[in-house]
C-alpha cells in the first residue's frame, strides 16, 4: 500500500537508459528491468504470472482468495497456498521486528474506515458513515498460527497484508526471476523496490539501479525529489499522501496505528527506507510513519538508512542515507 520509489522509466531517463516493462497488478503499478535488458520479455512474463498467483492467494479484495477463506474461518485451520503462508510469515516477522507497530491483524479497522475495496474503486469522498475505531487488541498477531500447509487466525482477527504484501510480492518476483532466468533484476511493486542478482555474479558486476523518490507515484511525473542508486536489497516508501479518502466527514488513510485503531497522525508524511529485502525496507518505512516523533531515533537504533519528510516538506535523514553525515539530520528543501 505504499508508493513512490521506483526505477526511472525510460522516458525519464537519459538516452542509453535500460529498457523496462511496466504494467498494473495488485491494484498498483509494476516496473521491471533486467541488467542490459537481458531476457526482459521472459522476466516480465514470469513476474506477471507470479503477481497473478499472489493476487489469487493474498488479496483482501477477492472473496475466493486463500486469505479471505482463512479470514472467514477464525479459530479453524484453513488449508492455504505456500504463497500466502510466505506472505503471512513475513507479515508476522514484521510485527515481531517492530513490536507490533506493523500489525497485520487490523483488517477490521480498514473495513470500518471504509477501505473495503481495491483503492481504484474506492470513492475518495463518501458521505457513508464510518464506524468509530476502537483500539485493537494488542499483540493479537502473536496468536496467528502457521503450519506447513494451513493457517489459523484467532477469533476477532482479520488479516490484511497491505503493509508488507506488495514488498513481499516484489521480493518474490525478483527471487523468482533470478532463480528461473539467472539475470540481475530490479522490480518495483507500487514503490516497494527490490534489486536482486544471481549469487555467482561478483559484486563489481552487479548493476546499480537508479531509483527516483517522490511522495506519490504521480508526483514522479514532475520529477523525483531525489535519485539514488540501489545496489543491493530493497527500498520502500510509505506515505500518508497516497491512498487517502474522506468518509463520515473525516479524512482517512491506510496506515493504521495499532495503539489507537486510527490512521497514524504523526509528523511524517513520507518515509523512504532501505533494507536487505523490500519487505525489510517496507517494515521500517511503515513503522516510521506510525511511530511518529520516535521514528528517527528508532530507525537509527536499528541501523536503517532512511529519509523522512514531514508535512512541511522538511527532510530528515538517518545515518547510512547517502549524504547523511553519521547522525540523523534535518535538511531544508
Amino acid at each position, binding site marked *: 500500500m505504499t508508493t513512490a520509489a521506483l526505477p526511472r522509466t525510460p522516458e525519464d531517463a537519459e538516452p542509453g*537508459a535500460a529498457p523496462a516493462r511496466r504494467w498494473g497488478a495488485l491494484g498498483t503499478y509494476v516496473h521491471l528491468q533486467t541488467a542490459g535488458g537481458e531476457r526482459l520479455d521472459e522476466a516480465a512474463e514470469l513476474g506477471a504470472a507470479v503477481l497473478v498467483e499472489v*493476487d489469487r492467494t493474498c488479496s483482501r479484495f477477492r472473496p475466493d482468495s486463500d486469505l479471505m477463506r482463512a479470514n472467514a474461518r477464525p479459530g479453524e485451520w484453513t488449508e492455504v497456498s505456500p504463497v500466502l503462508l510466505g506472505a503471512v510469515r513475513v507479515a508476522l*516477522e514484521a510485527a515481531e521486528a517492530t513490536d507490533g507497530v506493523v500489525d497485520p491483524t487490523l483488517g477490521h479497522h480498514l473495513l470500518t474506515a471504509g477501505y473495503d475495496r481495491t483503492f481504484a474503486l474506492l470513492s475518495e469522498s463518501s458521505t457513508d458513515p464510518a464506524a468509530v475505531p476502537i483500539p485493537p487488541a494488542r499483540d493479537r498477531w502473536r496468536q496467528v498460527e502457521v503450519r506447513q500447509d494451513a493457517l489459523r487466525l484467532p477469533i476477532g482477527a482479520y488479516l490484511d497484508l497491505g503493509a508488507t504484501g506488495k514488498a513481499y510480492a516484489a521480493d518474490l518476483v525478483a*527471487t523468482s526471476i533470478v*532463480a528461473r532466468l539467472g539475470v540481475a533484476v530490479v522490480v518495483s511493486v507500487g514503490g516497494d523496490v527490490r534489486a536482486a542478482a544471481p549469487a555467482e555474479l561478483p559484486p563489481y558486476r552487479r548493476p546499480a539501479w537508479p531509483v527516483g523518490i517522490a511522495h506519490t507515484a504521480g508526483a514522479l511525473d514532475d520529477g523525483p525529489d531525489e535519485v539514488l542508486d*540501489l545496489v*543491493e536489497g530493497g527500498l520502500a516508501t510509505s506515505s500518508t499522501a497516497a491512498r487517502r479518502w474522506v468518509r463520515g466527514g473525516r479524512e482517512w488513510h491506510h496506515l493504521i496505528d495499532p495503539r489507537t485503531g486510527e490512521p497514524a497522525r504523526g509528523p511524517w508524511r513520507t518515509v523512504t527506507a532501505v533494507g536487505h529485502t523490500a519487505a525489510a525496507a517496507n517494515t521500517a518505512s511503515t513503522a516510521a510513519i506510525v511511530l511518529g516523533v520516535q521514528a528517527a531515533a528508532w530507525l537509527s537504533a536499528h541501523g536503517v538508512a532512511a529519509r523522512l519528510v514531514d508535512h512541511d516538506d522538511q527532510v530528515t535523514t538517518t545515518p547510512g542515507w*547517502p549524504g547523511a553525515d553519521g547522525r540523523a539530520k534535518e535538511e531544508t528543501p
Partner: protein
Amino acid sequence: MTSPLTPRQRNRSRHVLNAATGLLTAATVASVGIASGLAASATKDSQDAKRAAKAQAAEAAASAAAAEPVRAQRPTKTIVTTKVVAGASRSGTASVGGGTVRSSSSSTSTRASTKPAVTKPVKVVVPSTGS
C-alpha cells in the same frame, strides 16, 4: 295439456329453486375452501420440509467445515515454486536494516557505474496480468 301454475305454486317453485341454488353455492364454496385449505396445508408442509432440509444441509456443512480444512481449487501449474517462496520468506526476511544505496551515479557517485548497459530508450510495453 297442463294447466298453468297458480301464483302461489310459482312462488313455491321459485323458493325451492333458490334454496337448491343456495345449497349448491354453499357446497361449492365449501369444497373450494376445503381444496384451498388442503393446498395451503400441502404448501406449508412442503415449505417446512424444504426448511428442514436446508437446516440439515447447513448443519452438515457446518460440521464438515469444523471437521477439516477447506480444500481450495489449486491451479494445475504453480508459477512460484515452494523453494522460491521459502527463499523469499525465510527467517530474517522482514528484519529491518541492510541493503545498499548510494548517491546516484548520474550526480555524485564515486563508484564506476555498473548501470545496465543499453543503447537507447524504449517504449514501455504493458503485459496483460488479468488484474
